[in-house]
């Protein structure tokens, strides 16, 4: 369990909060490029870290992310006219460029220089690897651009989606770190999902339903290893990477694409679940991309017009009790991501961790919480840059390996846990 003050500290990420300051140390995913598909396209409302913002792409293709509301009388710039290198409020014509600088104030006399004194809060918005990233911290502490491998391989090797999750970010992240639920909640998908099935390593999952876990600190966060029995008294290890604050990468299966997530707070009760699939050394096939777009693997089917999953709390997640009873799914909910999200949302917007009854297999979650608490304290008290900001901490991979019984997996998989261009991932 976690004390209430620690629960609040970890779950509140708005401006001025300690965890908010931690998140603002990093580049975080903000939008997909498809949301701003062309120059002068309509602006898009964005809420991140409890700040309401507006995103747009100007006449020269530059991206802007700034305060949603006009400095004049507080009108939402979602109604704005995106034209001639700026976003113009339709109420009185005040216009802003991508940096938030007011560049025209037609309701004032022509000679007035007052516009130059008006600037909306704005953040950089840059495209890398199929994601529009933003950094919401102090400009003088802006880190280098992200170097996650999925974002640096050629576009044809990577796929990214996002979905709206109606829970606090932390209970979503904890699901990504917690390997012990896979044998239960997702057991039906290993042999059926086209993005998982057929790998030789799956036989170890199915033959040993009680994995043993090992949690080891990494420079950026944690390695979470799940070991199962393999041949000749060896162990089959599946090693998940967690890099602060909210990146996870799951161990690969065979030659399938490797996947993982970011969870980004929208506000304290909602988050974006970003899901990537990529292969370091080959192009994703049409079948793979088709399956991802169809909501297979860690991706979802959407409702009309937005990034909210088709199966959501408003329709009881399309739960199929017959499928649950027949063993086709464990919870009755279809799809890996919605199996997770439905349960995480059922915990309530912000789960009360003072009421938990943790067990030893929750040690990964326990350690992650402590790592986050320490990082927040070091940042607030000493200005120490948190783990995960350094691009070295981002050039990582997950791994699936078979090792002798007494070998530390961090040692045995040392090379495999680093992203090496042109080198295939360690998979079984």
């Amino acid at each position: 369990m976690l004390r209430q003050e620690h629960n609040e500290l970890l779950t509140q990420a708005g401006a001025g909060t300690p965890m908010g300051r931690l998140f603002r140390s990093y580049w975080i995913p903000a939008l997909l490029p498809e949301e701003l598909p062309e120059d002068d396209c309509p602006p898009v409302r964005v809420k991140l870290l409890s700040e309401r913002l507006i995103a747009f792409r100007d006449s020269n293709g530059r991206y802007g992310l700034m305060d949603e509301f006009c400095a004049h009388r507080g009108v939402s710039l979602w109604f704005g006219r995106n034209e001639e290198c700026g976003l113009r409020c339709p109420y009185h014509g005040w216009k802003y460029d991508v940096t938030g600088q007011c560049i025209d104030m037609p309701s004032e006399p022509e000679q007035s220089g007052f516009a130059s004194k008006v600037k909306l809060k704005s953040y950089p918005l840059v495209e890398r690897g199929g994601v529009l990233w933003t950094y919401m911290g102090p400009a003088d502490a802006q880190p280098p651009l992200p170097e996650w491998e999925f974002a640096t391989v050629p576009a044809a090797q990577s796929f990214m989606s996002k979905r709206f999750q109606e829970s606090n970010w932390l209970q979503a992240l904890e699901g990504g770190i917690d390997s012990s639920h896979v044998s239960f909640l997702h057991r039906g998908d290993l042999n059926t999902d086209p993005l998982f099935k057929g790998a030789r390593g799956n036989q170890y999952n199915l033959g040993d339903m009680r994995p043993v876990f090992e949690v080891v600190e990494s420079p950026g966060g944690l390695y979470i290893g799940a070991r199962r029995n393999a041949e000749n008294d060896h162990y089959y290890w599946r090693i998940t990477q967690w890099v602060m604050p909210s990146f996870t990468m799951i161990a690969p299966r065979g030659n399938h694409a490797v996947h993982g997530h970011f969870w980004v707070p929208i506000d304290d009760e909602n988050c974006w679940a970003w899901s990537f699939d990529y292969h370091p050394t080959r192009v994703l096939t049409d079948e793979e991309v088709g399956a991802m777009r169809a909501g297979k693997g860690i991706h979802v089917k959407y409702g009309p017009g937005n990034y909210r999953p088709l199966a959501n709390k408003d329709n009881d997640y399309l739960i199929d009790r017959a499928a649950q009873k027949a063993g086709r799914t464990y919870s009755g909910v279809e799809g890996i991501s919605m199996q997770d999200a439905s349960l995480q949302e059922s915990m309530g917007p912000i789960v009360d961790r003072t009421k938990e009854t943790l067990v030893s297999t929750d040690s990964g979650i326990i350690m992650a919480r402590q790592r986050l608490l320490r990082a927040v304290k070091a940042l607030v008290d000493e200005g120490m840059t948190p783990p995960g900001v350094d691009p070295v901490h981002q050039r990582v991979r997950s791994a699936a390996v078979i090792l002798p019984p007494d070998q530390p997996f961090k040692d045995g998989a040392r090379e495999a846990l680093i992203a090496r261009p042109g080198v295939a991932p360690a998979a079984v």
Partner: protein
Amino acid sequence: MLSESARMSSAAEARFRIQAPPPTARAVMVIPLDSGSERLVATLSARTWNGVTFLSASAAADALTDVAAADLVVMVASAGADASAAATIGEACSRRRIPTATCVIRGASASETALSSTLGQIRPWSLMVVIASDRDYVEDLLRSFR
């Protein structure tokens, strides 16, 4: 009309949850495996705990019947130290179906070989292994098991 899932997962409905956490009366037994971890465990035992008992390494061998009263046994080891006691403790727990977890404290000077040696001794007897560089983590772990 909202679905039941939508209604029941709201912040408004969260107010109606039973506020008292379920009583667990969980008994956790902490056993150091070497002299280094014993010093750490002795320090922890001086603090206030609810349901956590601490053995010394020397008492562990004689107190194996005491593990029967535990819901969870947490072993603490130092990387590179002799952790052979894990087998005796682990066997006793295994016979009684008591889960075990081991926290290995890895000091900065401990080599991979030293860590490997300790892991070889504890892995057969631990359902969960944590390798931590920070000794404070042991207390964090124990405090999490309410």
